[in-house]
């Protein structure tokens, strides 16, 4: 065995052993990296450097900001109004709140482009709302994290830009257009899945739909809805970026909570910040330490080794297409999205095009695979954020997400084998 393979074995092997020994995942990731560095005789300063680098990403700032917004909305009376409004809209439908969650992510995806930001923002508002209405917390969180993947497919999407520039010669505009339909299909499959579960678990169905009640609640929640409008208009209208919108949303919800709904005093605000820190204390360190792990996987050429493994395996296009997905899914389980796109695209795209997959369609395939990877253990940032925001233990959350993984895999297969889903919309604008 070459020293490189040995290092990979130590890295991944010791990580899994420590997880089964019930180490906190955040520290198991750091320790397995530590062992690997020691084995390779490399300086331990890498740990320090990569931890800091892992959190030093401006778009990641949206996560703490949106979590803060959610906590303030929840304690300051804004969420209450939104709950009443949602009940008036979809209360008559079994699993209606799950549908709201799924549709909301589609539209929010048009702003943030980040599944982490989506889970942090919508999750911290919608999960408590759903639990309040009688949904199980694990189901609510599972719906939230899986639907957040829509945000990666609905433009604008930062990861699509990374793919377009790595794949070369692809118009970001076309790739953006290509994302709408796959995201819609993902949403529909998740809706079907959650409807079935809602019926099975007998989730609440409220009073019959009443237009007058709806208007009443719409009127009452004016200030709450304005929070959403400010984010949408500000970002779409070019006043601030998606990340900045998160900070603006915090300030706005503070203003409404303290001065208009008066659900919070300044002292109360300072107090509820503790809930934000509780959530962040779990999430951010995981992102920091996973960055060391990802750095070592990259430096050891793991994505390239995995991708090259399939090149000479078969020339059956269907099996190759499945293998492409499999490789991306496996990488997604242990690595973050951006490095996978950067490293695997140049290797996998030629294989994809050789079996007739269009580069734009392949982009959608890559994004969805990496998106699923964000929700899978042992390393999945959105899974961690969901677990922290929804206060659901990771393995309970994974279990509740199982049916949704199936929905996502079905969507993935449709996108892989039906090119028109991705290519029809861009073809109209050519």
């Amino acid at each position, binding site marked *: 065995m*070459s020293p*490189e393979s040995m290092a990979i074995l130590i890295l991944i092997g010791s990580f899994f052993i420590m997880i089964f020994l019930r180490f906190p995942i955040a520290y198991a990731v750091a320790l397995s990296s530590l062992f690997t560095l020691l084995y390779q005789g*490399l*300086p331990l*300063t*890498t740990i320090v*450097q990569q931890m800091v*680098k892992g959190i*030093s*990403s*401006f*778009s*990641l700032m949206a996560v703490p900001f949106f979590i803060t917004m959610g906590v303030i909305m929840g304690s300051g009376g804004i969420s209450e109004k939104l709950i009443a409004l949602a009940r008036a809209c979809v209360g008559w439908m079994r699993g209606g709140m799950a549908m709201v969650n799924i549709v909301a992510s589609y539209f929010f995806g048009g702003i943030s*482009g980040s599944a982490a930001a989506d889970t942090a923002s919508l999750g911290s508002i919608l999960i408590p709302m759903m639990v309040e209405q009688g949904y199980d917390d694990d189901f609510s969180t599972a719906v939230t994290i899986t639907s957040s993947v829509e945000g990666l497919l609905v433009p*604008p999407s*930062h990861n699509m*830009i*990374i793919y*377009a*520039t*790595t*794949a*070369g*010669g692809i*118009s*970001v*505009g076309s790739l953006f257009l290509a994302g709408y339909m796959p995201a819609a299909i993902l949403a529909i499959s998740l809706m079907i899945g959650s409807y079935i579960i809602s019926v099975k678990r007998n989730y609440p169905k409220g009073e019959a739909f009443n237009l007058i009640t709806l208007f009443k609640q719409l009127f009452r929640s004016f200030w709450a809805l304005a929070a959403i409008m400010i984010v949408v208009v500000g*970002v*779409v*209208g*070019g*006043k*601030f*970026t*998606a*990340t900045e919108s998160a900070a603006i949303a915090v300030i706005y919800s503070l203003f409404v909570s303290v001065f208009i709904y008066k659900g919070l005093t300044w002292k109360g605000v300072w107090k509820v910040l503790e809930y934000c820190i509780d959530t962040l204390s779990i999430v951010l360190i995981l992102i920091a330490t996973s960055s060391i792990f*990802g*750095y070592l996987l*990259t*430096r050891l*050429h793991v*994505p*390239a*080794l995995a991708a*090259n493994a399939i090149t000479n395996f078969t020339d059956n296009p269907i099996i190759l297409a499945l293998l492409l997905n499999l490789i991306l899914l496996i990488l997604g389980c242990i690595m*973050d*999205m*951006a*490095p996978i796109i*950067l*490293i695997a*695209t*140049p*290797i996998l*795209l*030629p294989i994809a095009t050789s079996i007739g997959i269009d580069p734009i369609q392949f982009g959608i395939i890559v994004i969805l695979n990496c998106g699923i990877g964000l929700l899978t253990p042992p390393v999945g*940032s959105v899974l961690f954020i969901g677990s922290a925001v929804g206060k659901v233990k990771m393995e309970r959350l994974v279990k509740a997400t199982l049916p949704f993984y199936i929905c996502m895999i079905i969507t993935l297969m449709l996108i892989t084998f039906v090119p028109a889903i991705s290519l029809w919309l861009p073809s109209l604008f050519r």
Partner: protein
Amino acid sequence: GAKTPTPEAAPAPEVTPAATEPAAVEPAAEAITFVFAEVNPLDTIVGQTDSAFKEKVEELSNGMIKIDIQPSGVLGSENDVLDTMLGGGGTIDMSRISAFALTSYGGEKSKLLSIPYTFANREHFWNFATSDLAPVFLLEPHENGSGVRGLFYGEEGFRHFFSAKPLNSMADLKGLKIRVSNDPVMNGMVEGLGASPTVVSFGELYSALQTGVVDAAEQPIANYKSNAFPEVAPNMILDGHTLGAIQVIITDEAWDSLTADQQAILTEAGKYASEFNRKISEDAENKVLEELKASGVTIVDVQDKAPWQDACKDIIEKSTADNAELYQQILDMK
């Protein structure tokens, strides 16, 4: 995860299957492998320069020195890479960086290369890069104790402004919100031109240009195209405020581990790669320029750069005050 915001973390077009080929081949008994970080993909001007260097080193050393290029910024942004190399190295031995990246690591000399409107044209830069002054500049980070040394210089073309709004003259920049990297010289330049420097991370730049959070930004032509900015900001003015001077650096630790002969091989390969870079960069840039024009991008040439230079006088003087004599020497190489 998002890419760290550097204007240079610029992925580029065309697929290169060889891009991330792993070091699957078993190295010979005593072969040395150096990990080489590159923020751009291999098919960019700088990526090709790296590859030329790698091939020359491996050829001259008969495969006894191997260069493991890790492109596309997978090992981090330029500052991440420099933090790794300067803070005890080990995981990265070599890197291609933009010359001004050393400014925030005490690179007083390298800073001079990024002063706006210093180099009148490419010729001027190459006069400097092949002069006796160049080795002095390259050795600065070694002399000042940073623990790395430069091997050779190259360039990735001039940087220009581009916008969603028409840019026909310097006056059109007035009042625009322009995204530049957060270093003080660039901010001073934008202020000098009557615009306001705006902080937006590189990862959010495409969307920011599209929605209008910023009106304009600046990049070398190749990066402008490869990041799809023409789609959202199809007006470019060729003011060429700075030349993207690049250099390849190696840690002192890696350098000292080599014999004198091996060091000579790196120097020799550096010379070759530098010439290679000079040969391809102008052609590559012109080719991209033609493609941009053909695809409908409005490109305005600047005949007289004197008014631009004049507008930025303050920041130029302020940033060169400590090394006025040395700066004059560079200017005189025109």
